[in-house]
């Protein structure tokens, strides 16, 4: 790509402590369409596409976004920034279009939501016209919580350029020589929202007259709302005018909806064990739902299987290793919770020793929502509210 004079100026005056990366050409106009409601999504996509290859080449091939790729638009709709997992550290990319590099402005969500917090925060200048990004410094959660100044007007923490570690080369060095450098400040957990309150908030924020949802309600409530993957998706769906994506009955009839499909949900035709036992009879195979998960480095499968007949509304959740014959290690747990993450009787199955499967069966009211959880936590786990 030929660079015009302004961008030649970039390399003419580039400081040795900056890193300039090319945005891969395939990422431009195609991703940005009027349907992509969000310019912020576009900028974050450019930033991620330029930086992830560098992290994979120079730091670790395992570097990946900390959220499922399909989940990222639901974050960028509301908040600027992208979390990346490298080894046991989290990097938060903070893109900005600002030409000047006077400050690093980090949205409060990445500092005060416990499960979103990062170790390092990278300051990234994005230049969409010319197709490059510039990493001009980094900071740590600990530094930001102690030194940055909080800006209530847009709920960001602002660090002056002089307070930032300006040499990007030192990030790799500190990882190699001092990986145990303290980077995070302790944080209180956010209060859990009762379901009715969450629904009221979502209803309020779904109104497109609320131009910036993240500024419209107190942060404690906002943080709790978007930390819950199911509620965040719900708000995202409503604001974009998308149909309900997590209706299990619809999945079984018409196939898995678009977003959950991107997360990995599929329908399977299965012969139930009952049908196999009476192999002489023609019993039609059953449609079940399946999702593959990566847990502690191994592939597992979560299945949702309708039990009995439609009137009874009994559902069976099963977890097993994706490889036939391999069992689930002792200590694993499969757990179901209400929408607002409350337990109920018999909601959990634990592997006291290695077992072939974990399962939980529930009877549900029409329209009831459930969240599933597994211990240990699967990679890129994000709550989803399955509606029955």
């Amino acid at each position, binding site marked *: 790509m030929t660079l015009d004079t302004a961008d030649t100026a970039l390399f003419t005056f580039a400081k*040795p402590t900056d890193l*300039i*990366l090319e945005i891969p050409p395939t990422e431009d106009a195609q991703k940005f369409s009027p349907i992509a409601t969000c310019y912020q999504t576009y900028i974050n996509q450019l930033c991620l596409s330029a930086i992830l290859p560098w992290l994979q080449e120079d730091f670790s091939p395992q570097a990946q976004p900390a959220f499922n790729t399909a989940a990222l638009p639901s974050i960028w709709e509301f908040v600027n920034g992208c979390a990346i997992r490298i080894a046991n550290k989290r990097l938060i990319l903070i893109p900005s279009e*600002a*030409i000047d590099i006077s400050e690093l402005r980090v949205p409060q969500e990445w500092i005060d939501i416990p499960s979103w917090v990062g170790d390092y925060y990278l300051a990234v200048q994005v230049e969409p*016209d010319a197709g490059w990004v510039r990493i001009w410094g980094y900071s740590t959660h600990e530094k930001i919580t102690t030194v940055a100044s909080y800006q209530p007007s847009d709920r960001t923490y602002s660090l002056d350029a002089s307070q930032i570690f300006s*040499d990007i080369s030192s990030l*790799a060095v500190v990882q190699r020589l001092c990986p145990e450098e303290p980077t995070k400040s302790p944080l209180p957990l956010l209060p859990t929202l009762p379901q009715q309150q969450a629904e009221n908030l979502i209803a309020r924020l779904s109104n497109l007259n609320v131009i910036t949802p993240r500024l419209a309600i107190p942060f404690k409530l906002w943080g709790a709302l978007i930390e819950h993957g199911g509620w965040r998706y719900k708000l995202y769906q409503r604001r974009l005018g998308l149909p309900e994506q997590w209706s299990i009955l619809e999945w079984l009839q018409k196939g898995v909806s678009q977003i959950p499909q991107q997360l990995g949900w599929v329908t399977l035709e299965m012969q139930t064990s009952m049908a196999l036992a009476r192999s002489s009879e023609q019993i039609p195979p059953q449609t079940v739902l399946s999702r593959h998960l990566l847990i502690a480095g191994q592939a597992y499968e979560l299945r949702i299987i309708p039990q009995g007949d439609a009137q009874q509304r009994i559902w069976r959740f099963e977890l097993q290793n994706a490889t036939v014959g391999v069992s689930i290690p002792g200590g694993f747990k499969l757990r179901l919770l209400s929408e607002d993450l409350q337990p109920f009787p018999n909601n959990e199955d634990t592997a006291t020793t290695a077992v072939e499967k974990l399962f939980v069966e529930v009877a549900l009211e029409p329209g009831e929502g459930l969240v599933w959880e597994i211990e240990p936590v699967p990679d890129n786990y994000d709550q989803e509210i399955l509606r029955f």
Partner: protein
Amino acid sequence: MHTRQSIIEIFSSFVQFEADRFSSWATDAKLRRSMQRCVNLSPQIDSLQTNSDHFWAVYWYKIWLSQAASVQPTSIAKGHLSAYLQEPCYWEAKKTTASFSSNQYTLSDCFQIAISQIDRVLKNYDVNQGFVLKKYATVIFSSAIRETLRQRHEVDICTPWGLLRKISQKRLIESLQTAGLSSTIIDTYVLAWNCFKTLYIPKQATVTRQLTRPNNQTWEAIAELYNSQTQQPQNPDTLERWLLNSAVAVRNYLYPPLTSINNSSSGQDSVEWIDNIPANEQDSLISEIIAQEEEESRLDQQAEINQVLMSAIDQLEPQAQKIIQFYYGKGLTQQQIAQELEMKQYTVSRRLTKSRESLLQKLAQWGQEKLHISVNSDLLQNTTIVLEEWLQNYYNPPRLPSSLE
């Protein structure tokens, strides 16, 4: 430009530009008297030490530090340090105009960009890290000149609307402050700007610099959003005027005018330096610095550092070594290096980052092993300065004091 010789001169005179060239050194009388007094106060001190400009730099820096809380922009300590840093500033400006030939910026222009960083230099300088203030300042000046010139290029190809989308809130506020607006007015401008940024989104993927004026419908929406957040509603025309003014302020911010200290033809009075240091404080500070002076140990470490870094460079791949040589030695830009080595400019940036990573690591490891300094991001911030300083000096040994322009 001839370099200054006497301690008194070094801490009391300022570069004078005429027709964008060095014309003379102008001495500030008050600073000269103050410096004379200091030199007279210390006849009992070994003359070798008090002649070292570094000694007096540390002295004035400590005085400045002890007064920093009382916010004296024109304290005499700062005056002395500003005078002291005239030369490194001048050399950096000269280097820039020599490397990047262009009629878009002048020597005095670059000088002014750098010298306006003095506050930042003093605020972030840490005398305990063993840096020589002059060398630390040089790294900051060099970085500031490059960054400002790059930003000017960016700003020059943007329409006002594109520019407004591409600045940080901090830069906006600083520009408006420099333009002389009151903080109340600045608050209203910032609110208008935030409403503008929220509602005016680029429609095409790669047209952000050349953004056109928002249409009237968008202006109505911006005004509505603005009015919903304030007690004093405004109409769209006013908001548009404010934003255009802001764009002008932002552009002007990158072109600081030459301050009167360095502009002999400006006709303005020189700065009134405020001298409020208690006399006995000076005496005890001088003794204290002498006691702490670790000149010898610093020279020893310097030899070891040379060893560590020279061998680290030898261990780089040949192409990486070339890039380092071209960049620090020949002073080529990354663009020129790319042409010379027939590679993409992006590749030069990446290789340079990787090479510096390797050098930084060896230097940090040496510090860890020999000096038992534990490595963390804070330390590496300083190690970077040491590395930059070393790379500049290794390939470009400093000029001898007797050289003339």
